[in-house]
């Protein structure tokens, strides 16, 4: 370090020139790095890059091997849902303690969770499940347990869970339209 400083003192002009060239070189490298992160999809206030897609992989269980196309779709859905969560001011504790893509992921989960809770079911959905599966709801004496609020919530959860995947895909499609998300060249 000392030798470097002494060198700087002796050859101030030459070294200054060297560092200037070096900084230009580093900036150019950094820009090239940014360019390398290919954009997968773009929308209003949304840019999804290959880096995001790579990040998304971390959230998928190891036993699931999605295709590149489905991974891109999942990433875009995560990003649009996170954006919608921010726009709607949805509270999300997990998102407050995270940053970057992890924060986007947390936001999207909170958004989906809230929308699933708010989801309205068809009239008679809970009741029909209860009546069609009446044998499951018998007590020790063989009497049918009443369809109280607790039971309703339990059945509702079962139905919502079964519907969650389809609902999430529909929601993503709507949000992609809302934010005018377009797939970029090479994307899905």
């Amino acid at each position, binding site marked *: 370090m000392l030798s470097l400083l002494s060198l700087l003192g002796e050859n101030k002009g030459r070294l200054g020139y060297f560092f200037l060239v070096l900084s230009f070189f580093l900036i150019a490298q950094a820009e090239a790095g940014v360019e390398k992160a290919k954009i997968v999809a773009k929308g209003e206030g949304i840019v999804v890059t290959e880096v995001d897609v790579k990040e998304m992989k971390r959230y998928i269980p190891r036993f699931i091997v999605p295709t590149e196309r489905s991974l891109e779709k999942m990433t875009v859905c995560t990003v649009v849902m996170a954006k919608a969560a921010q726009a709607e001011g949805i509270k999300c504790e997990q998102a407050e303690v995270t940053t970057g893509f992890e924060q986007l992921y947390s936001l999207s989960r909170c958004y989906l969770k809230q929308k699933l809770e708010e989801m309205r*079911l068809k*009239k*008679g*959905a809970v009741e*029909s499940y209860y*009546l069609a599966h*009446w044998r499951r709801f018998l007590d020790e004496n063989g009497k049918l347990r009443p369809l109280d609020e607790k039971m309703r919530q339990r059945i509702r959860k079962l*139905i919502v869970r*079964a*519907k969650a995947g389809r609902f999430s895909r529909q929601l993503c499609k709507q949000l992609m339209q809302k934010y005018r998300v377009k797939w970029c060249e090479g994307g899905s």
Partner: protein
Amino acid sequence: MVRRWILTLIALVVVGAVVGCAATPVEFNFRSDVFGSKNRLKQNFLRYWSLRAKGEVETAFALESPYIQEMLGLDYYKRYLKLYKARLQKLEVKKVSCPEPFYCELECRSVWMGKKDRQDVRWFKDRWVKVSGNWYHVLKDPLFFPQL
């Protein structure tokens, strides 16, 4: 001129065959008293299986229990029914048992017409549930829909 006539004739034969196949009604067979006083159940049963045989999936879907409509969705239901390559030809109701006033099980014998006119006989239990005064079909297929 002759060519036009031939083409018209071919078109008529093809349309006739398609319409003929699609419109072939199911032959229902059951004792007059098998449904007892459950006339509305009988009506919906006949309607449901006629619709299924005609391939009117959307209307048949409306007769599925509301929870099934919610859990499956029409698109998935359509894809599932497309798996049935054979055509329902006969449907016999052997027994109707209702362990609860809102739930009935129908023991059925069905005859399906497959490719190359191969007949296939299948026995199954058809379940129905009464919700808000209406009878709905309860689709059960543990292989495809274990969640139902």
